[in-house]
């Protein structure tokens, strides 16, 4: 199955590049922790009243997702940077590989970056705000799939645009809204299964769409 | 006019005004197109003055 082999090769390449350069991931980690700290100061001090505490925790869940989404944006802006700087994207597109393999390889690498991000962000969140439930973790993982799938494709679209860094958040945020709903719901609701199932649906629908349409985004 | 009527009027006015703005934009575009065609007709004349 050369398709999967290509995907693995491409993903490995991205991971190796990042391990060597070490520019994107540390920035993302620092960014998410700084953002959480800013949020702590932005939230009004909860009263000692338990009910208020509860509300704070729910609001804080929302802040977790805001932090995750914007940090992901930061990373996605750099997703295609190695290809752009080296002029390698044209080379990849001309190579006798399925174009979707390029997308899947890059998405896989981004997924790993996001998981590394979560390994820092979730403990930090638990430390600063409230403990993180298992369903939140599941929600985060599922949402990561969606983020890396659409984020990689949208970043490729943005790369073709003049206003590259400006346009990526505009493209990404409306599509990220359902992810935030799913993620926050998974963490907050009494029935997280519905929200997790919804996240799975989102991932399925958009992953298929991205896989099918990526070649049109990068080709003439 | 009671409250309800005012909102009703407001809603239909918004729709109406939007349509009028649309018409105005098209009118502006049409006059620009007219200007351009006249200009192009002039250019065509210059190239073949005998064809009139």
């Amino acid at each position, binding site marked *: 199955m050369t398709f999967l082999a290509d995907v693995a090769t491409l993903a490995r390449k991205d991971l190796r590049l990042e391990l060597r350069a070490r520019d994107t991931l540390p920035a993302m980690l620092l960014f998410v922790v700084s953002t959480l700290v800013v949020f702590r100061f932005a939230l009004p001090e909860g009263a000692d009243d338990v009910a208020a505490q509860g509300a704070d925790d729910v609001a804080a869940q929302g802040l977790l997702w805001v932090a995750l989404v914007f940090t992901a944006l930061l990373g996605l802006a750099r997703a295609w940077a190695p290809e752009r700087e080296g002029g390698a994207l044209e080379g990849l597109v001309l190579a006798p590989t399925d174009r979707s393999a390029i997308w899947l390889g890059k998405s896989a690498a981004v997924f790993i970056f996001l998981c590394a991000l979560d390994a820092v962000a979730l403990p930090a969140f638990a430390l600063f705000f409230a403990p993180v439930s298992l369903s939140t973790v599941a929600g985060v993982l599922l949402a990561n799939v969606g983020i890396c799938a659409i984020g990689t494709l949208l970043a490729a679209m943005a790369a073709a645009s003049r206003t590259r860094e400006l346009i990526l958040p505009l493209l990404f945020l*409306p599509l990220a*809204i359902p992810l935030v709903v799913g993620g926050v719901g998974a963490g907050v609701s009494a029935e997280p299964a519905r929200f997790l199932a*919804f996240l799975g649906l989102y991932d399925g629908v958009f992953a298929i769409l991205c896989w099918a*349409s990526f070649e049109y985004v990068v080709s*003439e | 006019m009671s*409250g309800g009527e005012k909102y*009703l009027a407001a809603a*239909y006015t918004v729709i109406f005004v939007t349509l009028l703005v649309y018409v105005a934009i098209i009118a502006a575009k049409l006059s620009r197109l007219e200007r351009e065609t006249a200009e192009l007709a002039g250019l065509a004349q210059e190239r073949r003055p005998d064809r009139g």
Partner: protein
Amino acid sequence: MSTSSLNRSGFGSPVPLLAVLASGLVGIALALVFFVAPEDADQGLSQKIFYFHVPIALTAYACFGWGAFKALLLLWRKEERYDLESYVAVHQGTIFGALTLATGSIWAKASWGHWWLWSENQLVLFLVLFLFYSAYFMLRFSIEEGPRRANISAVYALFGIALVPVSFLAIRLAENVIHPTVFTREGPQMTGTMFFTFCVAWVAISALAYALYRLELLGKRLDSNLRELREALSS
């Protein structure tokens, strides 16, 4: 470059006929709304906003769907004209979407006293879609004209139509848990006359949207034909 909309055999462009038809239908719809349809017992006169608000919303969805359909055709058949048709459809959809938000907001104020209600699923969905399709234009105008731009716009339009059901589901899920509903909306109980008026209004708005769509297409094709002519003459 396709000039099919200009050189159609017979009476030239169908746009004037469409415009007349749309005007007539809208006139009839307005007459029905204000003179024939009974006043709603609960909501009073402001209920009549619905007769245009809902068709405008439905037409916006239809425009986005039409744009996605043309986008699919572009990616599949690779004919240039589909790009323009998809773009104009999305443009129409965005305008009607903005109108949906405006009329919906006025209705919300009239019924509940607030200019915005997060509990109104339709409104929230349109807000998300409006954000999405506004980005469509920013994306399109930041890319050089050409096949790349056409392809990217088409893919984005397809994403939009996938976003509609997904967003709707998300909003439904959110309203019950994240934002417990304070206001519940009961759809107006429609009598036969009301339903008939609604249908007429729907057909009228659809006709209007289609007439505007063909009109805008005509204008844009004229534009590009003139540009080609100019290039040919000045070379």
